[in-house]
C-alpha cells in the first residue's frame, strides 16, 4: 500500500482516533516514540487511514524539524485529515491527535510533580529522585550513542561518527552555542563532506 488512501471519516471515526491517542499517551513511558509499533498497527494495519510512506515521512520530518519529536503525532493527524478532505480537516486532525497524546500524560506529570514537591521531605521521594539520577543521566548518553550508530557502515559513515564525537567534546568542554554546531553540521552535510 504505497499510495495515500482516500477516506471519508465520520465523527465516530475521529472519536475513535482520539480515544486511541489517549490510550497511547498512557502507554508512552520513555517517550511517545515507544508506542510507534502500536500506532502503526492501529493507523495502517487496522484502519488503513495512512500509507506506510506517510507514516515514515511524518517521523522523519518531525525529527528534522525544530521542536519536540512528539510533533510526528500532529503530522499523522494532519495526513489523515489530508486523506479525508482539505486543509481545515487536516488542521483539525493534527490538533485532535496532539491533544489526545498530551492530555493524559501531561495531567499525570503535573499532578505527580505537585505531589512530589509537597512531599519532598519524604525519604521515599528523596530516594527516588536521587536513586534514579545516575540511570537517567546514563540514558541520555546511551540515546546519543544509539542515534549515532543508526549509521552503521564504518567505511562511509566514519566522518559522521567523528562529527558526533567532536560535537560531544566541544559542547561538553566549552561554552560554544549549540546553534553554531548545528549550522556546521548542516553545511558539512549539505556539501557532502560527512
Amino acid at each position, binding site marked *: 500500500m504505497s499510495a495515500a488512501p482516500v477516506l471519508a471519516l465520520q465523527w465516530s471515526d475521529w472519536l475513535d482516533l482520539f480515544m486511541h491517542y489517549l490510550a497511547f*499517551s*498512557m502507554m*508512552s*513511558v*520513555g517517550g511517545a516514540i515507544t508506542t510507534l509499533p502500536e500506532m502503526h498497527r492501529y493507523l495502517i494495519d487496522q484502519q488503513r487511514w495512512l500509507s506506510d510512506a506517510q507514516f515514515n515521512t511524518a517521523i522523519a*520530518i*518531525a525529527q*528534522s*524539524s*525544530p*521542536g*519536540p*519529536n512528539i*510533533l510526528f503525532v500532529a503530522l499523522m493527524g494532519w495526513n489523515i485529515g489530508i486523506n479525508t478532505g482539505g486543509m481545515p480537516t487536516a488542521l483539525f486532525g493534527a490538533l485532535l491527535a*496532539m491533544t489526545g497524546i*498530551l492530555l493524559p*500524560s*501531561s495531567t499525570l*506529570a503535573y499532578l505527580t*510533580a505537585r505531589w512530589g*514537591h509537597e512531599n519532598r521531605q519524604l*525519604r*521515599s521521594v528523596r*530516594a*527516588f529522585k*536521587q*536513586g*534514579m*539520577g*545516575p*540511570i*537517567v*543521566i*546514563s*540514558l*541520555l*548518553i*546511551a*540515546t*546519543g*550513542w*544509539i*542515534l549515532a550508530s543508526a*549509521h552503521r557502515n564504518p567505511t562511509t559513515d566514519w566522518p*559522521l561518527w567523528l*562529527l*558526533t564525537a567532536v*560535537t*560531544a567534546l*566541544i*559542547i*561538553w568542554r566549552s561554552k560554544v552555542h549549540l546553534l553554531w*554546531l*548545528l549550522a*556546521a*553540521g548542516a553545511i*558539512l*552535510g*549539505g556539501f*557532502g563532506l560527512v
Partner: protein
Amino acid sequence: MTGYYGNTLKSNIRSQPSSLTDLFVSLTWLSLQGFGGVLAVVQHELVERKRWMTKEEFVEEWAVAQIMPGPNVINLCLMLGGRYFGLPGALAAMAGLLAIPLVLVLLLALAYAQYGSHPYVVGALRGMGAVAAGLIIATGLKLVSALKTNPLGLPVSIALCLACFVCIALLRWPQAYVLLGLGAVGCTLAYRKLKP
C-alpha cells in the same frame, strides 16, 4: 499567582522567569533551536544560560519526567512552568514548546513533498543528525558532575551509569525494563543511605 514551589525555593535558585510571557517566549526560542531533540537545548538554556534551575535540580526533575508516560521534554518543562506559576505556568510552558514549532512542522511537511529528495537537503539533515547525537551525549556528560553530591556516592553512581549504558546502548534491551530494574536498585540503595 504562585506555583506550588511557593517562595521557599527562591533563595536557592539563582534566577527565574519574570512572567508567563517570559516563560512562553523563552521556551519558544528554546524549542526552535531543538533540531533532532530539545533536551540538550533545555539543559543548555535553562541551567547554563538562564540559571532557572541548578544541575542537581535538573537531574531530579528529569528523573520524574523520564519515568512518567508522555514526551519527556514536555513533562520536564510543564513541571518547571508549574513550579513557578502553577497550572497557568505549566500551560504556558507547553504552549511555548509546541505552538510555533507545530506551525513550522506543518509548513515543512508541505515543503518536504517538493524538496525532500534534493541531495543538499538530504546531506544537511544527515549532518545535523550527527551533531544532534553529539549534543545529547554532551548533555549527559555534563550532568555526570551533578552525581558528586548524590547520596549514593560517586563509585556506586558511576557503576549504575555504566550498567545502564551497557544495557541500553550495547545490548539494546527495552528501556522500560532497564529503567524498572536498575531504577529499583538505585532507589533502594539511595533509600538505605538517606537518614529517615
